[in-house]
């Protein structure tokens, strides 16, 4: 694999995807501290939002310690070089949320839909472009559809105005060949000026290998989370990926040692539990289930006395998609009823 000289934008997700394992309770002080460390290490893009994006504050996904606006207004003025992004899932957040995030100073918005539903993002992508934002489209659960269909969906998002389209492995299910095929299909279909990104989860331990496969197939933006702080078994651990990338001669502009310090000194201490491939996270990756379902399944399993693994397998069997957290307690209730029969 010769990736020498490739220029890659690293995008940290620990303060957004990392909100899932923190049950959206990261404090403003912690946000400022971690974001400051990432900025100092040279990470160019940092995402700050509720785990489920702007407007995610809810019974269904969890109420956060602070509003998106409070987080963004606290973090953005502290940044010396890094730019801050926000995530938006149409159906949960709206263009009003997007406008407010823009007023708070985000430079990048990432509009995320399920991999077959790109056409619900038109309003939001167009609005982001009108606001002059760096506009990124996010095709989630990308393993659930074949590369050709994924490329068709990406083309729609490009037609609405997306500067960059992501292959998003929300379940941490993809293996490198699957990443190569999907990123390759997008690269062959999209305008050469449209960038491609890859967002991985580490449920099968493939975050780094998958990200390298993505770069080889043409991706220029790579997501990760410092210390892996993200849903499921976490995202691609950013400090590890950066070290690998530097050894391969990929230009990230991020300091290996400073980023390792952020992981060790700032992020690991704030974890509520180790971010690792435990049994349930493994099932997420193996069965192709949305990573942020993990803690909900654990809680519902404990509440109703059913194995959380069984809940996750059922979520996979039902082909649930991102955002269907409401089905977790419903399934737990059904499994508990069956157990009584």
């Amino acid at each position, binding site marked *: 694999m010769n990736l020498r000289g490739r220029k890659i934008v690293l995008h940290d997700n620990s303060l957004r995807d990392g909100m899932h394992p923190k049950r959206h309770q990261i404090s403003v002080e912690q946000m400022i501290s971690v974001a400051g460390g990432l900025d100092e290490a040279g990470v160019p893009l940092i995402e700050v939002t509720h785990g489920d994006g702007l407007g995610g504050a809810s*019974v269904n996904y969890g109420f956060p310690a602070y509003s998106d606006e409070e987080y963004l207004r606290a973090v953005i003025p502290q940044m010396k070089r890094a730019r801050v992004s926000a995530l938006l899932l149409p*159906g949960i957040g709206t263009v009003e949320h997007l406008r407010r995030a823009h007023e708070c100073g985000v430079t990048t918005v990432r509009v995320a839909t399920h991999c*077959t539903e790109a056409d619900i993002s038109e309003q939001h992508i167009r609005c982001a472009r009108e606001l002059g934002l760096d506009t990124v489209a996010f095709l989630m659960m990308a393993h659930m559809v074949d590369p050709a269909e994924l490329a068709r969906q990406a083309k729609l998002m490009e037609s609405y105005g997306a500067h960059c389209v992501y292959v998003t492995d929300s379940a941490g299910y993809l293996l490198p060949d699957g990443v190569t095929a999907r990123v390759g299909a997008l690269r062959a279909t999209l305008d050469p000026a449209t960038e491609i990104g890859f967002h991985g989860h580490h449920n099968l331990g493939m975050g780094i290998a998958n990200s390298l496969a993505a770069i080889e197939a043409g991706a220029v933006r790579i997501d990760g989370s410092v210390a892996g702080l993200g849903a499921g078994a976490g995202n691609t651990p950013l400090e590890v990926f950066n070290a690998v990338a530097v050894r391969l001669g990929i230009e990230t502009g991020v300091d290996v040692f400073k980023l390792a310090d952020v992981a060790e000194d700032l992020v690991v201490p704030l974890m509520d539990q180790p971010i690792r491939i435990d049994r349930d996270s493994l099932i997420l990756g193996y069965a192709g289930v949305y990573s942020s379902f993990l803690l909900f399944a654990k809680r519902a399993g404990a509440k109703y006395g059913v194995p959380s693994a069984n809940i996750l397998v059922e979520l996979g069997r039902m*082909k*649930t998609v991102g955002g269907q957290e*409401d089905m977790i307690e419903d399934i737990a209730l059904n499994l508990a009823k069956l157990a009584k029969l």
Partner: protein
Amino acid sequence: MRNNLATVKCAIVGSGNIGTDLMYKALRSEWLEPVWMVGIDPSSEGLARARAQGLATTVDGVDGLLPHLDREDVRIAFDATSAYVHPQNAAKLAARGVVVVDLTPAAIGPYCVPSVNLAKHVGKREMNVNMVSCGGQATIPIVAAVARVQAVAYAEIVATVSSRSAGSGTRKNIDEFTRTTANGIEKVGGARRGKAIIILNPAEPPLIMRDTVYCLTEGEPREDAIRASLATMIAEVQRYVPGYQLKNGPVFDGKRVSVWLEVAGLGDYLPRYAGNLDIMTAAALRTGELIAREMADGLYGQTGKWS
């Protein structure tokens, strides 16, 4: 088929999923007679189906219908286009005295969720009534059933529909859906604050519409009264949507009341999984029938004297 001679003629504007499903239901109505289907796409399947049922059709939008209103004595129109198009349609039809039942989330007129507030629309002579959204029709009755027992500080709904049942109008109007539904949860459901989430799921075979309702009560939930109120309300909705079903709950967790629903349709147009179409079209039809009965009673003035 029709026993009632005093039917009111109506037009269906929009030949997509919702308009087509509504047509089949209206063809069975004792009070309404669908005579026009309005579309914009000559290759629309809905228009072909309308012609097969003997309806007149146009591909020129509402403008194609306007010249025929008087001769045909069309007095009610159902708008199943999109929130972006509805305001123009509504203005053109209102100018001609046609009462509009709005199935888009444009929400110009007052909200109607029949099981909750149909009685409040009686005798009002409203010229435009809004049906909120499919998710609103499925969930607002549940919010109202809790709110009539005790104060609801916050209600949140998650509506999951199959991708196949979400047509282009729905897809372009995702924000309007969440906004209008949240508003309906407050104004009709009676929650102090409302939030709505919509999810499209492409699974094959398609999933039956699922709706989850969370209410946060102000005081401790009065469990028995809430259970009884929910049972009554669900039976009321089942009168016009027989496939409306409680799947789980109510679960009481502190002040949180959770209810899981499934909505199966009659399969008039799309198969039974598309309960989101049925709950919308059946509610709109009930509303339209109320207006038709009031017209038959002379409440809206004499027939054919509009222009």
